[in-house]
């Protein structure tokens, strides 16, 4: 299986490494060449320096033959556009897009884009963590 990961930050690089470890053929795209370091010394997958909005860069990364595309740059709107380009221009069925803003993540999810919103996840996990705390029973001191 072949995957293209756009954005090699903390999230993109780890997703790329995990897919690589599970046997995927992974090519990573990032604007900065030093982002390659995040993939570790023994990275054997592909790495293309360029902007994910650039069709030539996506094609160089082999998007036309990709089974999955992960979009995780640091810009929500950039991710939304690249995700839709992967879906609509290159007919990739498995496109997963990281969106930090819950409102945009929800809207684009209703339009058929697979958005993952770490903010929403953090909100529910944190709320649940507080709820599940073992709290000491406090006695009410009468005024």
């Amino acid at each position, binding site marked *: 299986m072949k995957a293209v990961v756009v954005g090699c930050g903390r999230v993109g690089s780890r997703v790329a490494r995990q897919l690589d470890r599970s046997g995927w053929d992974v090519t990573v795209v990032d604007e900065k060449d030093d982002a390659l370091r995040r993939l570790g010394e023994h990275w054997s997958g592909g790495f293309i320096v360029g902007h994910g*909005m*650039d*069709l030539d860069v996506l094609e160089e990364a082999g998007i036309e033959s990709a089974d999955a595309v992960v979009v995780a740059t640091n*810009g*929500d*709107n*950039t991710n*939304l*556009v690249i995700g*839709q*380009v992967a879906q*609509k*221009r290159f007919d990739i069925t498995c496109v997963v897009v990281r969106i930090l*803003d819950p*409102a*945009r993540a929800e*809207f684009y999810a209703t*339009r058929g884009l697979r958005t993952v919103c770490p903010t929403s996840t953090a909100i529910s996990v944190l709320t649940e963590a507080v709820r599940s705390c073992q709290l000491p029973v406090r006695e009410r001191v009468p005024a």
Partner: protein
Amino acid sequence: MYIVIAGGGKVGANVARTLLGLGHEVTLIEQRPDRFRQLEEEFEHQVQQGDATEIYVLERAGIARPPDLLLAVTGDDEDNLVICQIAKEKYGVPKVIARVNDPRNQPHFDLLGISPTICATSSIMALVEHEVPEHGLIHLLELRNENLEIVEVQVDKSSPWAGKTVERLNLPEDSRLISVSRDGHSEIAVGSTQLHAGDRVLAILQPGSEDEFRRALVKS
């Protein structure tokens, strides 16, 4: 009309001012705090601060009314695209106009159905090509009385003419090749004259058919 303008740079501010002068109701959205304060002096309550790609910012600007028209003219193409999509598809804004900053992003706007778009670079290039029709084609002589002109072109490596004989060229009807020059030597172009990449060719044609002639030279 009610018009929302996303992006209060030079384009957004000037368009807002003009539309207000025409009596329209306008809300301008600008993200940068210092630029916003500048705009506020002129536009007062008609400018709001915020990221126009945030749904609550758009709602505060009245996107749900909805406006008759939304203009996305920020300096960021991804933002303009997303603002237009949200306006059109979530709030049913009947007309959106997007600014394209980098002409290489035009296919994304086309793919996602955002039109019309306006791109300063593309507009300027269209004017340049119109004003300077000899773009790749040099006008050598105008024969006014005969209504003919003599032009010179170069046969590029990628031209379909390279490697062909003159009789096999697909020339516009009202044009003929005169001569072919290569390495300092020239010969009269006849049917069997073979063209090579790098050749300079003189041709005679009717004014107005330059575009068709150039198209024949660059693609068959």
